[in-house]
């Protein structure tokens, strides 16, 4: 089966006055039809910028510097990263084939337009020009995302709804045109825990119902375990480990993933007074990064002269499991994106 979305060596940089921020620097992954891929990482690792790049809504001064984003659209493949793609072609895809739900339900809806207006807008753009039909679909969508009294709610404004309800409305808008791919950018981060679970379940149910793929962006390992088929772990603008949920959780290879999993406190397994196994240090700023493994200064197994000299390449370590680490492979990622081999000094 060919993938629905195929991101290859995506590079999105921000040219700021302080230097070039390589927010996304050579990210590759695929999303199969109806599959859920989790994109996980700390704040600032480039998860959201990756999502924005796929939607082509990267804010200035960010720009896609290279790479390809192939999207399968009714038999033909479109490269979303192609600068030659016209604005109207892109807009026809946005909201229809790929749509997005954002992190902040409190601000992601316009405060001065009714909910109905905001759902109809996307329907008018992609599905129907008929007001009555659009209203019907809108009411139906609101009912599907679990909003009571949809006929009445449709005339209300976002401030009259709670955070969870707003996120449901956002999901209704995103799914109104039955997209083939939904990008969910931390959709539950701003919600309280019980509502989080409801929203996760809702997205899961609707995914089955609408036969769509989901790219799930989060920093919450629990969410990944709950909803994803495969995971891409991101660190400092690159995917460092990539594989099935089972492989990543039970057989993590990259020191970052290992430490990340170990940092989760487990109920009943942590002794009283024992400190949390936090990863030491902080994520470095991705401004003017030299070619090296981004994690080398926080890694406990760092190899001097290797990890701080070259960028490791993503290499297969098991079936459907890739890792970007010199502990597991000798391949180097060169400046031009090609793969080289590390020459280790004899021990």
């Amino acid at each position, binding site marked *: 089966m060919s993938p629905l979305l195929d991101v290859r060596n995506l590079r999105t940089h921000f040219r700021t006055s302080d230097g070039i921020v390589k927010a996304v620097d050579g990210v590759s992954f695929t999303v199969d039809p109806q599959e859920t891929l989790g994109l996980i990482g700390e704040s600032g690792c480039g998860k959201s910028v990756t999502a924005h790049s796929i*939607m082509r809504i990267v804010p200035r001064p960010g720009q896609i510097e290279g790479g390809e984003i192939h999207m399968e659209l009714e038999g033909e493949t479109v490269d979303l990263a192609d600068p030659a793609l016209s604005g109207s072609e892109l807009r026809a895809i946005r909201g229809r084939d790929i749509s997005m739900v954002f992190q902040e339900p409190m*601000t992601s*809806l316009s405060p001065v337009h009714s909910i109905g207006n905001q759902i109809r807008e*996307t329907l008018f753009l992609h599905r129907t020009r008929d007001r009555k039909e659009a209203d019907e679909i809108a009411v139906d969508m609101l009912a599907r995302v679990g909003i009571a009294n949809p006929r009445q709610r449709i005339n209300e404004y976002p401030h009259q709804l709670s955070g969870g309800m707003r996120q449901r409305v956002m999901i209704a808008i995103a799914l109104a045109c039955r997209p083939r791919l939904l990008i969910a950018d931390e959709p539950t981060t701003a919600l309280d825990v019980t509502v989080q679970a409801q929203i996760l379940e809702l997205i899961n149910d609707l995914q089955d119902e609408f036969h769509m793929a989901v790219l799930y962006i989060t920093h919450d390992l629990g969410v990944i375990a709950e909803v994803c088929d495969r995971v891409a772990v991101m660190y400092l603008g690159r995917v460092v480990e990539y594989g099935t949920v089972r492989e990543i959780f039970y057989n993590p290879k990259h020191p970052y993933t290992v430490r990340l999993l170990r940092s989760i406190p487990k109920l009943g397994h942590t002794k009283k007074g024992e400190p949390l196994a936090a990863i030491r240090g902080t994520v470095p700023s991705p401004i003017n990064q030299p070619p090296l493994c981004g994690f080398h200064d926080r890694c406990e197994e760092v190899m001097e002269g290797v990890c701080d000299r070259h960028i490791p390449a993503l290499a297969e370590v098991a079936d459907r499991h890739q890792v970007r680490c010199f502990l597991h492979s000798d391949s180097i990622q060169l400046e031009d994106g090609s793969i080289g081999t590390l020459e280790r000094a004899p021990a």
Partner: protein
Amino acid sequence: MWAYLTRRFLYMVLLILVTSMVSFVIIQLPAGDYITTLAVRYAATGQVVEQEVLDALRIQFGLDQPVYIQYFKWFTNVLQGDLGWSFQQVRPVSELVAERIGVTALISVCSLTFAYVVGILIGVVSAVFQYSVLDYVFTIVGFLGLASPNFLLALILMVIIFNAGGAVGGLYSTEYLNAPWSWAKFLDLLKHIPLPMIIVGTAGTAGVARVMRATLLDELQKQYVVTARSKGVAEIRLLFKYPIRVALNPITSTIGWELPAIVSGTVITDMVLQLPTVGPMLFSALVAEDMFIASSLLLFLTSLTVIGTFVSDMLLFSLDPRIRVN
């Protein structure tokens, strides 16, 4: 909602009543009264007016009575539509005001429209193309407009236009000054309007542009703009439907506050430009302690300020669903 409106209305009436009292008293605070001003004026020309005559005049005008009785008399008359007499011109105040208010309102409405239309346009361009050459030019010109006093701008523009052979000062050419209204007089008026419109409007334009730029820049960053973009809405449509619409709220809601400015005109600029507006009239009435005309005008302006604030609140109420309580 209705309870809220009724309460607001009652506060409004109370506020107008209190301000009218306070302004009446303040006008009388300087030593002496209109009769003193009159006596001084006669004395300046070498004439001596008998004390008896002055006293008789005081009694005739009711100036011998305590302030609160004067106020009470004047205010009951106002409620019946009689604004009193102007001592200076010996004519009913209502007649004097009526003469000027139309022209004042015309100039004010023109300059306000100019200020808002141009200001909003500049603000939008500045925000959308932030840090572009155009933005910097507008910002510099805007600050100059805000910082320079209007009457100075009036003087400079008058010199420039006069040297270019244009019409300067006043609202009509001399031949139409006392002529009855005709098509030709109207056209002549139209020719004279742009200068005061631009001069009176510039400070406002700069202000509106600054506010518009700042609010729009704020709104452009908001998540809902990204949401709309992710739906596939075209950029221009998106701009007008979301951030500009939201950014207009604070600006539209201040239009009500301009209501008193519409009828008062601007004193110094209007004097420089020799415009027959209410502003200079109020000024001379205050100087001469011509109290009925001054009190009437102040009462009028206070009422409009209060009503304008009310209108502003109502505007915001209808524009922003978040404010519609209950």
